[in-house]
Every structure is written in structure tokens, then in C-alpha cells.
């Protein structure tokens, strides 16, 4: 199949898309998800707010969320993006490959959190470093296969390349002892993966 045309991601879409896939989030997280620098991000957030696409939520910490108008505008832009890039068939194929990996990722997260003791699952207390290392080793193996899928997707829609960066970051931190980067933090491997899953669904206009 011919590679679809590629273009640079539009920051306006990136911000709406981040809030659509990751849910409402604060400034630091939007930056992490989109990879936009601070000044650029400020501009987009202000523009979108003026246009009524975003609203601030005064939670602690304060965050941003899509308004109904923002959701509608996002749906329009994301459908446009896929059509302009001529990437639907290509993304569909990659999504199928993603869906093969997804149950394995969830198995791994479960193995990280729970251990089988005499056939019964109990919480993994992370006392057994050898066990944790074995699980992380399998994460690394899965990550290599996930990287291949991500690379295909990025060739069609470059914004998907951000997942590669974020997943590698999470795995790197986890391997160097920051265990919360496996399943627990908002930048954890599982969280980023779940956003990637949601992103594919949203991009293709599918429901779960």
C-alpha cells in the first residue's frame, strides 16, 4: 500500500486532541502529552478559550477540559486530518496490530500489581526484586513490538510519534527504580498506553 501523505501536526488540533484522549488535565500534563513548548501552548490555550472550545476547571490543581463546542470542533478536525492524510486504511491496519498487543500489556500491568500465590492472586508488594525485574523485562520485550506499530503510525500521522517518546520515558524511569512509572503515575506506561488506545479509537471514530 502507498504511504499516505504526511504533514506537521497542527498545534490547535494537538491541544484539543490531548484533552479528548487524556481527559481534563493541567498545564504540565498537556505539555507532556502534546510535546508543545510552553509559549506555544499558552497561545493555543488562550485562543481556544476565547473561541469557547476549552474551559478551566478550578480543581486542585486547576485543569482544562473540552467544552461541547470543543468536542465538536475536535471531531471535525480529527476527521479532516485523517481524510487529508489519506490514512484511514493505514491506521486501521496499525490499530489491528495494536489490538493484538493490548491484552498482553494489560496482562503485564496485572502481573505488576498482582502475584499468584498458590493459584490465588494477591497484591504484589514489590519485595521480590527478581520478580519485578522479570516483569519489566517482558515490558521491554512488548515495548520493542509496540515501537514497530508506533513507527508505522507515525509515518502516516506524525503526532503518534509522541507515544514512542513517552512510553520509552516511562519504561526508562521504571527500569531505573521509579516503580510508579509502570502503572501508578499519570505519566506511567499504562496511562500513556491507555491514551494511545483511546487516541486510535478517537482517530478512527470508533467506540470501545
Amino acid at each position, binding site marked *: 500500500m502507498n504511504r499516505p501523505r504526511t504533514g506537521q501536526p497542527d498545534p490547535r488540533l494537538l491541544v484539543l486532541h490531548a484533552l479528548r484522549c*487524556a481527559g481534563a488535565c493541567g498545564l504540565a500534563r498537556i505539555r507532556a502529552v502534546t510535546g508543545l513548548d510552553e509559549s506555544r501552548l499558552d497561545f493555543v490555550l488562550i485562543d481556544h478559550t476565547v473561541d469557547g472550545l476549552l474551559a478551566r476547571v478550578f480543581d486542585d490543581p486547576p485543569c482544562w477540559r473540552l467544552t461541547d463546542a470543543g468536542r465538536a470542533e475536535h471531531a471535525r478536525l480529527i476527521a479532516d486530518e485523517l481524510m487529508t492524510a489519506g490514512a484511514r486504511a493505514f491506521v486501521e491496519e496499525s490499530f489491528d496490530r495494536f489490538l493484538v498487543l493490548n491484552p498482553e500489556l494489560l496482562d503485564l500491568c496485572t502481573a505488576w500489581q498482582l502475584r499468584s500465590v498458590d493459584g490465588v492472586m494477591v497484591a504484589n508488594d514489590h519485595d521480590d526484586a527478581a520478580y519485578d525485574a522479570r516483569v519489566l523485562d517482558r515490558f521491554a520485550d512488548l515495548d520493542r513490538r509496540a515501537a514497530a506499530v508506533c513507527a508505522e503510525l507515525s509515518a502516516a500521522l506524525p503526532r503518534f510519534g509522541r507515544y514512542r517518546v513517552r512510553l520509552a520515558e516511562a519504561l526508562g524511569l521504571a527500569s531505573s527504580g521509579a516503580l510508579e512509572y509502570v502503572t501508578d503515575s499519570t505519566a506511567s506506561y499504562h496511562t500513556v498506553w491507555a491514551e494511545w488506545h*483511546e487516541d486510535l479509537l478517537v482517530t478512527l471514530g470508533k467506540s470501545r
Partner: protein
Amino acid sequence: MRWIRAISSQVEETAENLGGKALGLVLLRRLGLRVPDGFVVTAEACRVFLREGRLPESLHDEFTTAVADLEHRTGRVFGARERPLAVSVRSGAPVSMPGMLTTILDLGLTPEATETPEPVPAETHDRASAARSRLRPLERAVEAVFASWDAPRARTYRALNDISDGLGTAVIVQAMVFGNKDEHSGSGVAFSRDPNTGENAPFGEVLFEHQGTDVVSGGATTRPLRELAGREPAVWAELCDALRRIERHYRDACYVEFTYEAGELWFLQVRPGRFGGAAAVRLAVELVDEGVIEQREALLRVSPRHLRHARTPRLDSAEAEILARGIGACPGVASGRVATSPDEAARMAAAGVPVILVRPETSPDDMRGFAVAAGIVTARGGPASHAAVVARSMGRPAVVGVGGLVFDAANGSATIADRLLTPDTLLTIDGTSGDVAAGSPRILLTPAGTHLHRFLAWSEEISSDGSTQGEGG
């Protein structure tokens, strides 16, 4: 036969070759319980298949003979239009790998198979080759199960659980029994005792007029096992008797999968119960009281980890109004008012109201809701779903895959056991048992209670005995 074994009480074989599931079926046969007719292709054949990429040459003839025997005994013909033989082709590894390997049901009922049968030619050679091509779909199914051993997900599971990649899986080919045949048919799973509490009473789920896959997949709403007693008293009595016999053999609680077809009870799988937490403690203590095991063995059966979990708070299910039951995904008990969206959960929590977040399933947008909720309930998903992973990461009691929870896409409303859920609805959930109860029933802080005290007392006696002996010697 080199590659194939009958499922019969005479088989003497190791789990390494026959697989754990088939060994269980042999045990059931020995105990005089009804098991659908069939045979096992050994794990050794799988090891050859994995090494050489195809079935061993001498397997084909054995396979044809085994199927012919099965056809003869059942009076049915594989691929025939009239009275077709329908079989299940199930994996059965030497070490259990739940859900990781392929299983094919209802083979022989597919249109593909019903087109092939031809009149048997006179020549023996032709007859053999005709039989072989007629049975080709069956051999393909065996190959598919063997090949699933090497799927990446299965490899990962083995790496995590210290299972050798070289074991391979046996394949069990059995005549199907149909839980959906008539109103005296159904399927279910049963524990000889309650795996949540250890109480000595059969516990499980039954699905009337359905096949067993519907029980496991959650495709239909199951009923508590005890309803079988009223509806099919003879089947119930037979099941209870079988559970007692199996317990006596294992000297432990047990778990079975069963189907009853036109009032006749069949067993499809058996294994020891594998209880955890408070249930493991109560089971061990009561087995001592029943004279089944010694105190010393009881102490060995409950690991320190389970003992720690015996102190996890539990819902008192005897006194609670249980609305639905799902899969416990993160242990603990939580009570609160219902929120059906993350926004609603955030608003209610900000007003100081404890919240149970109830969702069809979860997307990343629900994380805010998770963060403020006391507990989480989802209609879909299993113990390894995004919702379960996140709930555990936040330490929130969670119940997933709740069959009786229904969302109306048109108006966004949710009902559980036909009861409309509103922000005024008070629910209590138990993330160990998967119970979802109305209101705020009593919570047991040390559910193993007196059993745990007795267990710990034995433990102290024995360890002080041990130290006395140690000093003496």
C-alpha cells in the same frame, strides 16, 4: 497408540504428557462421574509440532481411528448433515494458563464441515484418504490449539509465571454436550464451598438454557448456583454428591465446570478450589474439624500472604441485599452515592459526598472520577482491564464485569438489577467477592473471625513445640 489417549479411568499418565485438564477428566471418570466421550492428543505431539512446524506423520492415522471410534460410540458422524458429531477442541497444558490458549467449540456444526461427507469408496486406500480429508477441519483445530502455545501473549504469561516454553499443551477432543438444548438444560461453575468466605456450602453460578461459554464470557446474566436446587432438584442432588466425592479425593475444596443436557449432568473440568485470604483460613480450620487434615497440614496450606489478606475488610453478604455480582478487581469495601460520570463524581466529592463511580467501562477521561471516588464499578471488563489496573494503582476497591449493570445509551441512565441508579442511590461494594449491595450493610473488619484466632493459636502451639524440641535436641 503413541500420540493419543482415551479419556478413561484406566489411563496412567503424567500431567506432563496429558495436561492438567485431561488429568482432571480422568479423575472424574475414576470417581464414576459423567464426562463427555473423547480423547486427548498428548503434549508430546505438540512438542513435535512446535519443533517441526507440522503434526507428526504417524498421528494422522491414529487421529482418524480415534475419531472413528468416537463416532462409533456416539452413533454420530463428523461432518454429516443428519446426526452430526459436534466436538470441542480444548487446550490443556501441563501447567494451567487460564485464557491464554485457543479453544474451539461446536466444531462439526459449521457449514464448512457439513459439505464434505461423501459416500465411502470401496478401495481401502481411498477410504483412508477420504476419511482424512473429511477430518481435516478437526486436525486444523488441533494445529490451531498447538500453535497458540507460541502466541506472544502466551509466551509472556509463561515468562512471568516461570513456566517452561518447552512444555507444550495437550489437546482434548470431546463430544459436545449442549446446555442450550431444552428447558432442562444449562451450564455453570461450582465450588464445593464459598471461595469468598470458606463457608461449607456449594457456591457458583448457573446459566439456564445456555452453553458454558456464555457463563465465562459474561454474554448472558448468570443466576446464583443455589437456584438450581429449586429448578432441577435431581441435577442439584447429583452435583452436591459429586462435589463431596471430589473433595474427599483432593482432601480440599474443589471447583468444577458443568453442563446438564436434558436433565443429565456432565462434568467438563475439575481442579482444587485454590482459596485465598479469610476463605483459605476458614477452609483449613474446618477441614481439621472434619478430620480431613491434621493441624500441621492446615498451617502449611495457608501461606503468610493469604494470612495477611485474611484481614481485608469484607461485606457481610449474609445480611446484605446483593443487587449484582461482578469480578472483584481490587480488594476492600467501599460505600457511597452513585455517580455515573467523572464530572458528577468530581462535583459530589467536592461537596464531601463519598462516591461510587459506576461506568460501562473506562476511558482515560474517567481517571478524574477514579481519583475522587471511594469505589469503582464497571459493567464490562475483567481482572486485567484498564479499569482494574487503574483501580489497583489507586488502591480503590473495585468490581468490574457486573452483568446486571445496564446503561441506556439513549438517555444516559444506568440500572442495576432493574433498579434505576441516581445520585441518591447508596451502594456498597466488596472488591474481593465482586458483590454490589444496596445501602450500607454491615462490614466485617476481620472476616475470618474465630477461625483466624484458632488458626493462629495452632500456629503458636506448634512453633513453641518446635522450639522446645529444638532446645532439647
